[in-house]
Protein backbone atom coordinates (compact mmCIF):
# COMPACT_ATOMS: atom_id res chain seq x y z
CA UNK A 1 0.00 0.00 0.00
CA UNK A 2 2.58 2.51 -1.04
CA UNK A 3 1.27 6.01 -1.57
CA UNK A 4 0.59 6.73 -5.18
CA UNK A 5 0.50 10.41 -5.84
CA UNK A 6 2.13 12.79 -8.26
CA UNK A 7 4.72 13.87 -5.74
CA UNK A 8 5.93 10.39 -4.78
CA UNK A 9 8.53 9.90 -7.50
CA UNK A 10 10.39 7.19 -5.59
CA UNK A 11 7.61 5.29 -3.83
CA UNK A 12 9.88 2.33 -3.09
CA UNK A 13 12.16 4.27 -0.79
CA UNK A 14 9.55 6.64 0.55
CA UNK A 15 7.30 3.84 1.71
CA UNK A 16 10.07 1.99 3.52
CA UNK A 17 11.08 4.96 5.62
CA UNK A 18 7.41 5.64 6.25
CA UNK A 19 6.76 2.25 7.81
CA UNK A 20 10.04 2.24 9.71
CA UNK A 21 9.13 5.62 11.10
CA UNK A 22 5.78 4.24 12.23
CA UNK A 23 7.50 1.36 14.02
CA UNK A 24 9.87 3.79 15.79
CA UNK A 25 6.93 5.98 16.76
CA UNK A 26 5.00 3.02 18.19
CA UNK A 27 8.05 1.78 20.09
CA UNK A 28 8.34 5.20 21.70
CA UNK A 29 4.65 5.14 22.65
CA UNK A 30 4.32 1.53 23.78
CA UNK A 31 7.81 0.59 24.93
CA UNK A 32 8.26 -3.09 25.73
CA UNK A 33 4.60 -3.85 25.10
CA UNK A 34 5.59 -4.55 21.48
CA UNK A 35 6.56 -8.18 21.23
CA UNK A 36 7.36 -8.55 17.56
CA UNK A 37 7.27 -6.56 14.33
CA UNK A 38 7.02 -7.85 10.78
CA UNK A 39 7.66 -5.40 7.99
CA UNK A 40 7.34 -6.37 4.35
CA UNK A 41 8.87 -3.36 2.59
CA UNK A 42 6.41 -1.38 0.47
CA UNK A 43 3.64 -3.85 1.23
CA UNK A 44 2.46 -4.04 4.80
CA UNK A 45 3.26 -3.87 8.48
CA UNK A 46 2.33 -6.19 11.34
CA UNK A 47 2.89 -5.47 15.03
CA UNK A 48 2.20 -7.90 17.84
CA UNK A 49 1.65 -6.49 21.30
CA UNK A 50 1.32 -8.06 24.73
CA UNK A 51 -2.19 -9.18 25.67
CA UNK A 52 -2.44 -6.76 28.60
CA UNK A 53 -1.45 -3.88 26.31
CA UNK A 54 -4.10 -4.60 23.67
CA UNK A 55 -6.33 -1.67 24.58
CA UNK A 56 -3.41 0.73 25.08
CA UNK A 57 -2.01 -0.30 21.72
CA UNK A 58 -5.30 0.64 20.09
CA UNK A 59 -5.20 4.00 21.80
CA UNK A 60 -1.58 4.52 20.79
CA UNK A 61 -2.15 3.85 17.09
CA UNK A 62 -5.21 6.10 17.16
CA UNK A 63 -3.12 8.89 18.62
CA UNK A 64 -0.39 8.16 16.08
CA UNK A 65 -2.77 9.18 13.31
CA UNK A 66 -4.52 5.91 12.46
CA UNK A 67 -8.03 7.29 12.81
CA UNK A 68 -9.74 4.98 10.35
CA UNK A 69 -10.94 1.67 11.79
CA UNK A 70 -10.88 -1.08 9.21
CA UNK A 71 -11.76 -4.31 11.02
CA UNK A 72 -11.14 -6.46 14.07
CA UNK A 73 -11.26 -10.23 14.13
CA UNK A 74 -9.52 -13.33 15.42
CA UNK A 75 -7.64 -16.37 14.17
CA UNK A 76 -7.78 -19.89 15.54
CA UNK A 77 -4.32 -21.27 14.79
CA UNK A 78 -5.14 -24.86 15.66
CA UNK A 79 -5.02 -27.10 12.59
CA UNK A 80 -8.48 -28.33 11.75
CA UNK A 81 -9.03 -31.90 12.99
CA UNK A 82 -11.31 -32.41 9.98
CA UNK A 83 -8.88 -31.33 7.28
CA UNK A 84 -10.42 -29.76 4.25
CA UNK A 85 -13.33 -32.16 4.24
CA UNK A 86 -12.15 -34.12 1.23
CA UNK A 87 -11.71 -37.44 3.05
CA UNK A 88 -13.84 -40.49 2.53
CA UNK A 89 -16.25 -40.60 5.49
CA UNK A 90 -16.33 -44.39 5.53
CA UNK A 91 -12.55 -44.78 5.76
CA UNK A 92 -10.74 -44.40 9.11
CA UNK A 93 -9.71 -40.78 9.69
CA UNK A 94 -6.19 -39.99 8.53
CA UNK A 95 -3.44 -38.84 10.87
CA UNK A 96 -3.26 -35.09 11.04
CA UNK A 97 -0.72 -32.79 12.56
CA UNK A 98 -1.89 -31.06 15.72
CA UNK A 99 1.08 -28.72 15.89
CA UNK A 100 0.09 -25.08 16.05
CA UNK A 101 1.99 -23.00 13.51
CA UNK A 102 1.60 -19.26 13.96
CA UNK A 103 1.74 -16.76 11.14
CA UNK A 104 3.58 -13.46 10.93
CA UNK A 105 4.96 -12.06 14.20
CA UNK A 106 4.58 -15.43 15.92
CA UNK A 107 2.61 -16.10 19.08
CA UNK A 108 2.18 -18.50 21.96
CA UNK A 109 -1.54 -19.16 22.15
CA UNK A 110 -4.14 -20.87 20.02
CA UNK A 111 -6.25 -17.75 19.57
CA UNK A 112 -5.06 -14.39 18.41
CA UNK A 113 -7.04 -11.22 17.91
CA UNK A 114 -5.96 -8.90 15.14
CA UNK A 115 -7.19 -5.54 13.99
CA UNK A 116 -6.39 -3.26 11.13
CA UNK A 117 -6.39 0.51 11.18
CA UNK A 118 -5.45 2.99 8.48
CA UNK A 119 -3.94 6.43 8.39
CA UNK A 120 -5.84 8.31 5.73
CA UNK A 121 -3.32 11.16 5.64
CA UNK A 122 -0.21 9.08 5.05
CA UNK A 123 -2.07 6.36 3.11
CA UNK A 124 -0.74 3.51 5.20
CA UNK A 125 -2.36 0.67 7.10
CA UNK A 126 -1.15 -1.41 10.01
CA UNK A 127 -2.27 -4.74 11.42
CA UNK A 128 -2.06 -5.18 15.17
CA UNK A 129 -2.12 -8.59 16.80
CA UNK A 130 -2.27 -9.93 20.31
CA UNK A 131 -2.32 -13.38 21.85
CA UNK A 132 -5.46 -14.42 23.70
CA UNK A 133 -4.72 -16.84 26.59
CA UNK A 134 -6.83 -19.96 26.35
CA UNK A 135 -8.94 -19.90 29.46
CA UNK A 136 -8.38 -18.13 32.72
CA UNK A 137 -11.65 -18.63 34.62
CA UNK A 138 -13.42 -21.42 32.79
CA UNK A 139 -15.61 -19.11 30.71
CA UNK A 140 -13.52 -18.89 27.60
CA UNK A 141 -10.72 -16.66 26.42
CA UNK A 142 -10.90 -12.98 27.27
CA UNK A 143 -9.21 -9.84 25.99
CA UNK A 144 -9.80 -6.12 26.43
CA UNK A 145 -12.38 -4.41 24.25
CA UNK A 146 -11.49 -1.75 21.72
CA UNK A 147 -14.86 0.02 21.87
CA UNK A 148 -13.39 2.90 23.84
CA UNK A 149 -10.71 3.37 21.18
CA UNK A 150 -12.83 2.97 18.07
CA UNK A 151 -16.62 3.02 18.23
CA UNK A 152 -16.75 0.85 15.12
CA UNK A 153 -15.17 -2.06 16.99
CA UNK A 154 -18.53 -2.71 18.65
CA UNK A 155 -20.04 -4.87 15.92
CA UNK A 156 -16.75 -6.52 15.01
CA UNK A 157 -16.29 -7.68 18.59
CA UNK A 158 -19.84 -9.00 18.73
CA UNK A 159 -19.14 -11.01 15.60
CA UNK A 160 -15.82 -12.20 16.94
CA UNK A 161 -17.43 -13.23 20.23
CA UNK A 162 -20.04 -15.46 18.64
CA UNK A 163 -17.69 -16.90 16.02
CA UNK A 164 -14.69 -17.63 18.25
CA UNK A 165 -16.06 -17.49 21.79
CA UNK A 166 -13.60 -14.76 22.74
CA UNK A 167 -14.99 -12.37 25.33
CA UNK A 168 -14.16 -8.68 25.26
CA UNK A 169 -13.82 -7.06 28.67
CA UNK A 170 -15.54 -3.69 28.68
CA UNK A 171 -17.80 -4.31 25.71
CA UNK A 172 -21.28 -2.92 26.43
CA UNK A 173 -23.39 -5.57 24.75
CA UNK A 174 -21.99 -8.87 23.48
CA UNK A 175 -25.19 -10.14 21.89
CA UNK A 176 -25.01 -12.44 18.89
CA UNK A 177 -24.68 -10.66 15.60
CA UNK A 178 -25.54 -13.33 13.05
CA UNK A 179 -26.39 -16.52 14.91
CA UNK A 180 -29.62 -17.31 16.74
CA UNK A 181 -29.52 -16.54 20.46
CA UNK A 182 -29.60 -20.19 21.48
CA UNK A 183 -26.92 -21.35 19.04
CA UNK A 184 -24.35 -23.63 20.65
CA UNK A 185 -20.71 -23.58 19.67
CA UNK A 186 -18.44 -21.13 17.91
CA UNK A 187 -18.49 -21.76 14.16
CA UNK A 188 -15.15 -20.28 13.15
CA UNK A 189 -13.18 -22.33 15.66
CA UNK A 190 -11.27 -25.00 13.82
CA UNK A 191 -12.74 -27.78 15.95
CA UNK A 192 -16.29 -26.81 14.93
CA UNK A 193 -17.18 -29.30 12.19
CA UNK A 194 -18.68 -28.17 8.92
CA UNK A 195 -21.38 -30.82 8.83
CA UNK A 196 -22.17 -30.41 5.15
CA UNK A 197 -18.62 -31.49 4.39
CA UNK A 198 -18.56 -34.36 6.85
CA UNK A 199 -21.72 -35.86 5.38
CA UNK A 200 -20.74 -35.51 1.74
CA UNK A 201 -17.08 -34.75 1.11
CA UNK A 202 -16.09 -32.28 -1.54
CA UNK A 203 -14.06 -33.70 -4.41
CA UNK A 204 -11.31 -31.23 -3.49
CA UNK A 205 -8.40 -31.27 -5.87
CA UNK A 206 -9.95 -34.12 -7.85
CA UNK A 207 -11.94 -31.59 -9.91
CA UNK A 208 -8.77 -30.60 -11.75
CA UNK A 209 -9.16 -32.65 -14.89
CA UNK A 210 -6.08 -33.79 -16.76
CA UNK A 211 -5.32 -31.77 -19.87
CA UNK A 212 -5.80 -33.50 -23.23
CA UNK A 213 -2.79 -35.57 -24.20
CA UNK A 214 -1.28 -35.41 -20.77
CA UNK A 215 -2.19 -38.90 -19.64
CA UNK A 216 -2.92 -39.77 -16.05
CA UNK A 217 -0.21 -37.61 -14.58
CA UNK A 218 -2.60 -34.81 -13.71
CA UNK A 219 -0.65 -33.62 -10.74
CA UNK A 220 2.36 -32.24 -12.62
CA UNK A 221 3.11 -29.05 -10.79
CA UNK A 222 5.13 -27.23 -13.43
CA UNK A 223 2.39 -27.64 -16.01
CA UNK A 224 0.80 -24.44 -17.24
CA UNK A 225 -2.49 -23.69 -18.87
Amino acid at each position, binding site marked *: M*APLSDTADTPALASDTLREGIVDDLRARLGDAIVDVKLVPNVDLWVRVRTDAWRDAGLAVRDAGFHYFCFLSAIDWMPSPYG*RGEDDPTAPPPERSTEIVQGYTGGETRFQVFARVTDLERHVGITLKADVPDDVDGQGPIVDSWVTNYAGANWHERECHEMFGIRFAGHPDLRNMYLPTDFEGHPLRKDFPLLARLVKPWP*GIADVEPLPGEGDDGEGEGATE
Partner: protein
Amino acid sequence: MTDLIDRQKLSYIAAQAADARLNVELETEGMTLNIGPQHPATHGTLRIIVRLDGEQVVWADPSAGYMHRGYEKLTEVRTFPQVTTLINRIDWLGSFANEVPFILAAEQLMEIEAPPRAQWIRTILFELSRIANVSLFLGDLGVQLGAITPVFFAFRDREYVLNLIEGATGGRFHPNFDRIGGLKEDLPKGWIDETRQVMKKLRNFCDEIENLLFGNKIFQDRTRGIGVIPPAVAQQYGLSGANLRASGVDWDLRRDQSLPLAYDKVDFKVWTHPDGDSFARCWVRLQETREATKIVDQLLDGIPSGPVMAKVPRIIKVPEGEAFVSTENPLGEMGYYVVSQGDLGPFRVKIRTASFNNISIVPWVLRGVYVPDVITILASLYFILGDIDK
Protein backbone atom coordinates in the same frame (compact mmCIF):
# COMPACT_ATOMS: atom_id res chain seq x y z
CA MET B 1 -75.85 23.32 46.66
CA THR B 2 -72.57 22.43 48.24
CA ASP B 3 -73.16 18.92 47.07
CA LEU B 4 -73.34 20.02 43.46
CA ILE B 5 -70.26 22.20 43.71
CA ASP B 6 -68.34 19.39 45.32
CA ARG B 7 -69.42 17.06 42.54
CA GLN B 8 -68.34 19.59 39.94
CA LYS B 9 -65.03 20.01 41.67
CA LEU B 10 -64.52 16.29 41.83
CA SER B 11 -65.30 15.76 38.16
CA TYR B 12 -62.96 18.59 37.30
CA ILE B 13 -60.19 16.99 39.31
CA ALA B 14 -60.95 13.61 37.74
CA ALA B 15 -60.77 15.10 34.26
CA GLN B 16 -57.48 16.76 35.11
CA ALA B 17 -56.13 13.53 36.43
CA ALA B 18 -57.22 11.69 33.29
CA ASP B 19 -55.53 14.33 31.15
CA ALA B 20 -52.39 14.07 33.20
CA ARG B 21 -52.43 10.31 32.92
CA LEU B 22 -52.83 10.64 29.18
CA ASN B 23 -49.94 13.08 29.01
CA VAL B 24 -47.79 10.79 31.05
CA GLU B 25 -48.64 7.96 28.71
CA LEU B 26 -47.85 10.00 25.63
CA GLU B 27 -44.57 11.25 26.95
CA THR B 28 -43.01 8.31 28.61
CA GLU B 29 -44.51 5.25 27.05
CA GLY B 30 -42.83 5.26 23.69
CA MET B 31 -43.50 2.88 20.89
CA THR B 32 -41.32 0.16 19.48
CA LEU B 33 -41.49 0.02 15.73
CA ASN B 34 -40.17 -2.90 13.80
CA ILE B 35 -38.89 -2.13 10.30
CA GLY B 36 -38.34 -5.27 8.31
CA PRO B 37 -37.06 -7.97 7.91
CA GLN B 38 -39.18 -7.71 4.75
CA HIS B 39 -39.39 -4.04 3.98
CA PRO B 40 -38.65 -2.36 0.66
CA ALA B 41 -36.27 0.07 2.36
CA THR B 42 -34.05 -2.70 3.63
CA HIS B 43 -32.90 -4.07 0.24
CA GLY B 44 -33.24 -7.59 1.50
CA THR B 45 -33.76 -8.84 4.99
CA LEU B 46 -32.36 -6.38 7.47
CA ARG B 47 -34.50 -5.81 10.51
CA ILE B 48 -34.29 -2.54 12.37
CA ILE B 49 -35.96 -2.11 15.72
CA VAL B 50 -36.56 1.54 16.54
CA ARG B 51 -37.83 2.91 19.82
CA LEU B 52 -39.93 6.01 19.25
CA ASP B 53 -40.88 8.94 21.43
CA GLY B 54 -43.68 10.56 19.48
CA GLU B 55 -42.22 10.87 16.01
CA GLN B 56 -38.61 10.84 17.11
CA VAL B 57 -36.29 7.87 17.25
CA VAL B 58 -34.81 7.42 20.71
CA TRP B 59 -32.84 4.31 20.01
CA ALA B 60 -32.33 2.05 16.99
CA ASP B 61 -30.93 -1.41 16.72
CA PRO B 62 -30.28 -3.06 13.35
CA SER B 63 -30.43 -6.81 13.56
CA ALA B 64 -28.53 -8.54 10.78
CA GLY B 65 -27.91 -12.19 10.16
CA TYR B 66 -31.02 -13.26 8.28
CA MET B 67 -28.77 -14.03 5.35
CA HIS B 68 -25.57 -15.20 6.99
CA ARG B 69 -24.02 -17.81 4.75
CA GLY B 70 -20.79 -18.43 6.63
CA TYR B 71 -18.39 -17.65 3.81
CA GLU B 72 -15.43 -17.29 6.14
CA LYS B 73 -15.90 -20.88 7.26
CA LEU B 74 -16.61 -22.17 3.76
CA THR B 75 -13.41 -20.69 2.33
CA GLU B 76 -11.43 -22.88 4.72
CA VAL B 77 -12.58 -26.04 2.96
CA ARG B 78 -12.01 -24.83 -0.58
CA THR B 79 -8.99 -24.39 -2.78
CA PHE B 80 -7.89 -20.90 -3.78
CA PRO B 81 -9.45 -20.94 -7.28
CA GLN B 82 -12.72 -22.25 -5.86
CA VAL B 83 -13.12 -19.35 -3.46
CA THR B 84 -14.01 -16.83 -6.18
CA THR B 85 -17.29 -18.64 -6.80
CA LEU B 86 -18.32 -17.98 -3.21
CA ILE B 87 -17.18 -14.42 -2.78
CA ASN B 88 -18.94 -13.44 -5.98
CA ARG B 89 -22.13 -13.58 -4.01
CA ILE B 90 -21.18 -11.15 -1.25
CA ASP B 91 -22.20 -7.96 -3.01
CA TRP B 92 -24.36 -9.39 -5.73
CA LEU B 93 -24.89 -6.18 -7.66
CA GLY B 94 -21.19 -5.67 -8.31
CA SER B 95 -19.96 -9.24 -8.28
CA PHE B 96 -16.82 -8.91 -10.34
CA ALA B 97 -15.49 -6.30 -7.94
CA ASN B 98 -15.67 -8.84 -5.10
CA GLU B 99 -13.28 -11.21 -6.82
CA VAL B 100 -10.52 -8.72 -7.47
CA PRO B 101 -9.17 -8.07 -3.94
CA PHE B 102 -9.07 -11.76 -3.10
CA ILE B 103 -7.21 -12.63 -6.29
CA LEU B 104 -4.82 -9.75 -5.70
CA ALA B 105 -4.15 -10.98 -2.15
CA ALA B 106 -3.38 -14.47 -3.43
CA GLU B 107 -1.15 -13.03 -6.14
CA GLN B 108 0.65 -10.89 -3.58
CA LEU B 109 1.41 -14.00 -1.51
CA MET B 110 2.57 -15.91 -4.60
CA GLU B 111 4.60 -12.89 -5.72
CA ILE B 112 3.20 -12.96 -9.22
CA GLU B 113 1.45 -10.26 -11.19
CA ALA B 114 -1.12 -10.46 -13.95
CA PRO B 115 0.02 -9.36 -17.42
CA PRO B 116 -0.77 -5.70 -18.27
CA ARG B 117 -3.66 -6.57 -20.55
CA ALA B 118 -5.33 -8.57 -17.81
CA GLN B 119 -4.84 -5.70 -15.36
CA TRP B 120 -6.54 -3.28 -17.74
CA ILE B 121 -9.47 -5.57 -18.45
CA ARG B 122 -9.81 -6.22 -14.72
CA THR B 123 -10.02 -2.50 -14.09
CA ILE B 124 -12.59 -2.02 -16.86
CA LEU B 125 -14.80 -4.80 -15.54
CA PHE B 126 -14.33 -3.46 -12.02
CA GLU B 127 -15.65 -0.07 -13.08
CA LEU B 128 -18.50 -1.65 -15.04
CA SER B 129 -19.51 -3.46 -11.85
CA ARG B 130 -19.50 -0.13 -10.08
CA ILE B 131 -21.73 1.43 -12.73
CA ALA B 132 -24.15 -1.50 -12.66
CA ASN B 133 -24.29 -1.39 -8.88
CA VAL B 134 -24.56 2.34 -8.27
CA SER B 135 -27.00 3.01 -11.13
CA LEU B 136 -29.44 0.73 -9.37
CA PHE B 137 -28.88 2.68 -6.17
CA LEU B 138 -29.71 5.92 -7.99
CA GLY B 139 -32.95 4.45 -9.29
CA ASP B 140 -33.89 2.86 -6.02
CA LEU B 141 -33.27 6.10 -4.19
CA GLY B 142 -36.31 7.60 -5.87
CA VAL B 143 -38.53 4.74 -4.78
CA GLN B 144 -37.61 5.33 -1.13
CA LEU B 145 -38.82 8.90 -1.49
CA GLY B 146 -41.96 8.09 -3.44
CA ALA B 147 -40.69 8.80 -6.95
CA ILE B 148 -41.34 5.83 -9.19
CA THR B 149 -39.83 6.91 -12.52
CA PRO B 150 -36.07 6.77 -11.77
CA VAL B 151 -36.13 3.08 -10.99
CA PHE B 152 -37.37 2.27 -14.49
CA PHE B 153 -34.59 4.36 -16.00
CA ALA B 154 -32.09 2.58 -13.78
CA PHE B 155 -33.23 -0.92 -14.70
CA ARG B 156 -33.31 0.03 -18.38
CA ASP B 157 -29.77 1.37 -18.45
CA ARG B 158 -28.25 -1.15 -16.08
CA GLU B 159 -29.30 -3.79 -18.57
CA TYR B 160 -26.82 -2.43 -21.12
CA VAL B 161 -24.00 -2.74 -18.61
CA LEU B 162 -25.04 -6.24 -17.59
CA ASN B 163 -25.06 -7.22 -21.26
CA LEU B 164 -21.49 -5.99 -21.54
CA ILE B 165 -20.43 -7.95 -18.48
CA GLU B 166 -22.20 -11.00 -19.86
CA GLY B 167 -20.53 -10.51 -23.23
CA ALA B 168 -17.08 -10.46 -21.70
CA THR B 169 -17.45 -13.01 -18.92
CA GLY B 170 -20.46 -15.16 -19.73
CA GLY B 171 -22.27 -14.34 -16.49
CA ARG B 172 -24.63 -11.47 -15.89
CA PHE B 173 -24.52 -11.45 -12.13
CA HIS B 174 -21.83 -13.90 -11.09
CA PRO B 175 -19.00 -13.73 -13.63
CA ASN B 176 -16.42 -15.87 -11.77
CA PHE B 177 -14.00 -14.59 -14.36
CA ASP B 178 -10.96 -13.57 -12.38
CA ARG B 179 -8.17 -16.08 -12.02
CA ILE B 180 -4.98 -16.13 -10.00
CA GLY B 181 -2.49 -14.79 -12.54
CA GLY B 182 -4.93 -13.14 -14.93
CA LEU B 183 -8.33 -13.66 -16.46
CA LYS B 184 -10.23 -16.61 -17.84
CA GLU B 185 -10.48 -15.28 -21.37
CA ASP B 186 -9.77 -12.31 -23.56
CA LEU B 187 -12.42 -9.80 -24.62
CA PRO B 188 -14.74 -10.80 -27.48
CA LYS B 189 -14.61 -9.05 -30.84
CA GLY B 190 -16.55 -5.80 -31.05
CA TRP B 191 -16.86 -5.48 -27.30
CA ILE B 192 -14.78 -2.32 -27.05
CA ASP B 193 -16.90 -0.34 -29.55
CA GLU B 194 -20.08 -1.47 -27.89
CA THR B 195 -18.76 -0.43 -24.50
CA ARG B 196 -18.06 3.08 -25.79
CA GLN B 197 -21.68 3.38 -26.95
CA VAL B 198 -23.00 2.15 -23.63
CA MET B 199 -20.86 4.58 -21.67
CA LYS B 200 -22.49 7.43 -23.60
CA LYS B 201 -25.92 6.08 -22.67
CA LEU B 202 -24.90 5.82 -19.05
CA ARG B 203 -23.73 9.42 -18.98
CA ASN B 204 -27.14 10.39 -20.33
CA PHE B 205 -28.71 8.33 -17.59
CA CYS B 206 -26.68 10.24 -14.99
CA ASP B 207 -27.87 13.53 -16.45
CA GLU B 208 -31.46 12.32 -16.42
CA ILE B 209 -31.26 11.28 -12.78
CA GLU B 210 -29.57 14.53 -11.86
CA ASN B 211 -32.35 16.55 -13.45
CA LEU B 212 -35.11 14.33 -12.22
CA LEU B 213 -34.04 13.82 -8.61
CA PHE B 214 -31.22 16.02 -7.47
CA GLY B 215 -32.80 19.24 -8.66
CA ASN B 216 -36.14 18.26 -7.19
CA LYS B 217 -37.37 20.39 -4.28
CA ILE B 218 -38.99 17.48 -2.46
CA PHE B 219 -35.86 15.39 -2.78
CA GLN B 220 -33.68 18.20 -1.46
CA ASP B 221 -36.01 18.98 1.42
CA ARG B 222 -36.00 15.38 2.52
CA THR B 223 -32.27 14.81 2.30
CA ARG B 224 -30.48 18.10 3.00
CA GLY B 225 -29.28 18.34 6.58
CA ILE B 226 -30.67 14.90 7.42
CA GLY B 227 -28.45 12.25 8.98
CA VAL B 228 -25.29 14.31 9.21
CA ILE B 229 -22.15 12.28 9.95
CA PRO B 230 -19.06 14.30 10.92
CA PRO B 231 -15.74 13.10 9.45
CA ALA B 232 -14.26 12.07 12.79
CA VAL B 233 -17.23 9.83 13.61
CA ALA B 234 -17.24 8.37 10.11
CA GLN B 235 -13.60 7.33 10.45
CA GLN B 236 -14.12 5.83 13.91
CA TYR B 237 -16.86 3.59 12.57
CA GLY B 238 -14.81 2.73 9.50
CA LEU B 239 -17.23 4.14 6.97
CA SER B 240 -15.77 3.91 3.52
CA GLY B 241 -16.50 4.69 -0.09
CA ALA B 242 -18.96 7.41 -0.92
CA ASN B 243 -20.21 7.55 2.69
CA LEU B 244 -16.78 8.67 3.86
CA ARG B 245 -16.17 11.02 0.96
CA ALA B 246 -19.56 12.64 1.53
CA SER B 247 -18.29 13.61 4.99
CA GLY B 248 -15.46 15.51 3.37
CA VAL B 249 -12.69 12.92 3.79
CA ASP B 250 -10.66 12.72 0.60
CA TRP B 251 -9.84 9.03 0.57
CA ASP B 252 -10.16 6.73 -2.40
CA LEU B 253 -8.35 3.41 -2.57
CA ARG B 254 -8.26 3.59 -6.35
CA ARG B 255 -5.95 6.57 -6.10
CA ASP B 256 -4.35 6.17 -2.70
CA GLN B 257 -2.68 2.79 -2.92
CA SER B 258 -0.61 1.06 -5.55
CA LEU B 259 -2.09 -2.20 -6.67
CA PRO B 260 -1.52 -3.99 -9.98
CA LEU B 261 -4.59 -2.36 -11.50
CA ALA B 262 -4.66 0.30 -14.20
CA TYR B 263 -5.95 3.19 -12.10
CA ASP B 264 -2.61 5.00 -12.15
CA LYS B 265 -2.85 5.12 -15.96
CA VAL B 266 -6.03 7.16 -16.03
CA ASP B 267 -6.96 10.64 -14.98
CA PHE B 268 -9.99 10.87 -12.74
CA LYS B 269 -11.40 13.06 -10.03
CA VAL B 270 -12.27 11.86 -6.55
CA TRP B 271 -15.48 13.61 -5.61
CA THR B 272 -16.08 14.74 -2.07
CA HIS B 273 -18.80 16.76 -0.40
CA PRO B 274 -18.38 18.77 2.80
CA ASP B 275 -21.90 18.33 4.22
CA GLY B 276 -22.00 14.71 5.35
CA ASP B 277 -25.80 14.51 5.05
CA SER B 278 -28.01 12.17 3.05
CA PHE B 279 -27.94 14.48 0.05
CA ALA B 280 -24.15 14.53 0.00
CA ARG B 281 -23.95 10.74 0.04
CA CYS B 282 -26.35 10.43 -2.89
CA TRP B 283 -24.67 13.25 -4.81
CA VAL B 284 -21.18 11.78 -4.44
CA ARG B 285 -22.45 8.46 -5.77
CA LEU B 286 -23.99 10.14 -8.78
CA GLN B 287 -20.72 11.91 -9.60
CA GLU B 288 -18.81 8.68 -9.12
CA THR B 289 -20.95 6.84 -11.61
CA ARG B 290 -20.28 9.51 -14.19
CA GLU B 291 -16.58 9.47 -13.33
CA ALA B 292 -16.53 5.68 -13.73
CA THR B 293 -17.84 5.95 -17.29
CA LYS B 294 -14.98 8.32 -18.05
CA ILE B 295 -12.45 5.94 -16.50
CA VAL B 296 -13.78 3.13 -18.70
CA ASP B 297 -13.55 5.35 -21.79
CA GLN B 298 -9.93 6.21 -21.06
CA LEU B 299 -9.02 2.60 -20.37
CA LEU B 300 -10.64 1.42 -23.60
CA ASP B 301 -8.39 3.75 -25.55
CA GLY B 302 -5.20 2.22 -24.27
CA ILE B 303 -5.64 -1.50 -23.63
CA PRO B 304 -2.19 -3.04 -24.20
CA SER B 305 -1.89 -6.18 -26.26
CA GLY B 306 -0.52 -9.43 -24.98
CA PRO B 307 -1.67 -12.45 -23.03
CA VAL B 308 -4.36 -12.26 -20.34
CA MET B 309 -2.90 -15.04 -18.20
CA ALA B 310 0.48 -15.27 -16.53
CA LYS B 311 2.31 -18.55 -16.27
CA VAL B 312 1.04 -20.19 -13.10
CA PRO B 313 1.16 -23.81 -11.95
CA ARG B 314 -1.94 -25.72 -12.83
CA ILE B 315 -2.41 -26.79 -9.23
CA ILE B 316 -2.07 -23.60 -7.25
CA LYS B 317 -0.34 -23.72 -3.90
CA VAL B 318 -0.02 -20.38 -2.20
CA PRO B 319 3.12 -19.97 -0.08
CA GLU B 320 2.95 -19.41 3.65
CA GLY B 321 2.16 -15.88 4.69
CA GLU B 322 -0.50 -13.29 5.38
CA ALA B 323 -1.78 -10.53 3.17
CA PHE B 324 -4.48 -7.92 3.36
CA VAL B 325 -5.62 -6.37 0.10
CA SER B 326 -8.58 -4.06 -0.18
CA THR B 327 -10.03 -2.18 -3.11
CA GLU B 328 -12.53 0.61 -3.59
CA ASN B 329 -15.63 -1.42 -4.34
CA PRO B 330 -19.00 0.08 -5.30
CA LEU B 331 -20.06 0.02 -1.65
CA GLY B 332 -16.76 1.07 -0.13
CA GLU B 333 -13.59 -0.56 1.06
CA MET B 334 -13.72 -4.30 0.61
CA GLY B 335 -10.75 -6.35 1.66
CA TYR B 336 -9.64 -9.89 2.33
CA TYR B 337 -7.18 -10.82 5.02
CA VAL B 338 -5.81 -14.09 3.67
CA VAL B 339 -3.75 -16.42 5.84
CA SER B 340 -2.07 -19.22 3.94
CA GLN B 341 -0.04 -22.08 5.37
CA GLY B 342 1.36 -23.25 2.07
CA ASP B 343 -1.65 -25.41 1.34
CA LEU B 344 -4.06 -25.73 -1.57
CA GLY B 345 -6.59 -23.57 0.18
CA PRO B 346 -6.52 -20.66 2.58
CA PHE B 347 -6.09 -21.31 6.31
CA ARG B 348 -8.28 -18.37 7.24
CA VAL B 349 -9.94 -15.60 5.27
CA LYS B 350 -11.29 -12.56 7.07
CA ILE B 351 -13.69 -10.77 4.78
CA ARG B 352 -13.87 -7.06 5.47
CA THR B 353 -17.02 -5.87 3.79
CA ALA B 354 -17.98 -2.27 3.33
CA SER B 355 -21.66 -2.50 4.31
CA PHE B 356 -20.90 -4.11 7.67
CA ASN B 357 -19.03 -1.03 8.82
CA ASN B 358 -21.36 1.36 6.98
CA ILE B 359 -24.40 -0.03 8.78
CA SER B 360 -22.73 -0.23 12.18
CA ILE B 361 -23.14 3.54 12.39
CA VAL B 362 -26.95 3.25 12.15
CA PRO B 363 -27.58 3.25 15.94
CA TRP B 364 -25.54 6.45 16.18
CA VAL B 365 -26.95 8.29 13.20
CA LEU B 366 -30.62 7.43 13.77
CA ARG B 367 -30.72 8.82 17.29
CA GLY B 368 -33.08 11.79 17.35
CA VAL B 369 -34.27 11.69 13.73
CA TYR B 370 -37.90 11.52 12.63
CA VAL B 371 -39.47 8.32 11.37
CA PRO B 372 -39.71 9.22 7.65
CA ASP B 373 -36.03 10.20 7.70
CA VAL B 374 -35.08 6.71 8.87
CA ILE B 375 -35.85 5.47 5.39
CA THR B 376 -33.91 8.17 3.55
CA ILE B 377 -30.89 7.77 5.81
CA LEU B 378 -30.85 4.01 5.33
CA ALA B 379 -31.24 4.45 1.59
CA SER B 380 -28.45 7.01 1.41
CA LEU B 381 -26.04 4.86 3.44
CA TYR B 382 -26.62 2.22 0.76
CA PHE B 383 -26.03 -1.34 1.77
CA ILE B 384 -26.41 -4.75 0.21
CA LEU B 385 -27.55 -7.44 2.59
CA GLY B 386 -25.10 -10.01 1.30
CA ASP B 387 -22.38 -7.53 2.05
CA ILE B 388 -23.39 -7.22 5.70
CA ASP B 389 -24.10 -10.84 6.40
CA LYS B 390 -21.30 -12.44 4.37
